[in-house]
């Protein structure tokens, strides 16, 4: 957090992004990427009205790996449900009480819920304290809420300290 690099993680992301776009790691590409990674955050920094700090980068990495695994599992679950005969699913609309606050953490949690097994986030409550989830096939709604809390929300709370 200094003057030249107001958002260090974002700058790193932009540099990696540029190298991926170029599809090579050469001196020229790295130099151009570094210039862009410094100039773009400086130019757009004032437009960001929310401030997010990654307090635990290691937990964030762990979170990402867990998420990737769960996406693969959820794909197989949904494929199994689709290929089974219809009318055997038990959909439900569940209210998920949020413990975290702030627009970025809630967005990350809502996206996670949409990407993981059998659930889609449909709406944020007006007071911002709860998420409405549509679950494709649940028998025990409380257990599903408990699992999301334990698996994702706890880690997000640790990462963003909110």
């Amino acid at each position: 957090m200094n003057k030249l690099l107001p958002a260090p993680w974002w700058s790193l992301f932009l540099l990696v992004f540029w190298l991926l776009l170029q599809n090579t790691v050469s001196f020229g590409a790295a130099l151009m990427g570094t210039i862009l990674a410094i100039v773009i955050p400086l130019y757009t920094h004032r437009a960001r009205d929310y401030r997010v700090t990654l307090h635990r980068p290691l937990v964030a990495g762990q979170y990402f790996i867990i998420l990737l695994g769960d996406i693969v599992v959820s794909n197989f679950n949904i494929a199994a449900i689709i290929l089974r005969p219809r009318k055997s699913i038990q959909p439900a609309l569940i209210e998920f009480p949020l413990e975290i606050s702030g627009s970025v953490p809630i967005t990350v949690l809502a996206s996670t819920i949409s990407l993981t097994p059998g659930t889609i986030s449909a709406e944020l409550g007006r007071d911002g304290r709860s998420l409405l989830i549509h679950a494709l096939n649940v028998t025990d709604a409380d257990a599903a809420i408990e699992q999301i809390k334990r698996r994702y929300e706890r880690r997000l709370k640790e990462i963003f300290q909110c």
Partner: protein
Amino acid sequence: MNTLPQWAELLVSFFIILGASFTFIGSLGLLRLPDFMARLHAPTKATTLGVGGIIIGSMLYFSLSDTLSLHELLIAIFLFLTAPISAHLLAKAGLHLELKLTDNTRDLRKKPEQYSDKDS
């Protein structure tokens, strides 16, 4: 472009077929699932692995036959960013239009007025 050894060809074909199968199952889900909200689950989930499999196949093919190629990863990044958001917007629209859900959907909302347009 030189030819690939046989094990590499098998690996690449495996990932492409995996991706294609999941994309197909995702599209099939649109047809088979009972209501709007349930249908949303199929394209957001099954297709992430579908596209993922094809991307891995493409990365393997170009990395093994030519030089290291990772820019397919950008497709995955954009997909992970956009798929949940478009699903969320569609679900939101469906909710506010109060589309009919299948009969065995349980509504476990304690405060339904929190999620509706109507002023109470």
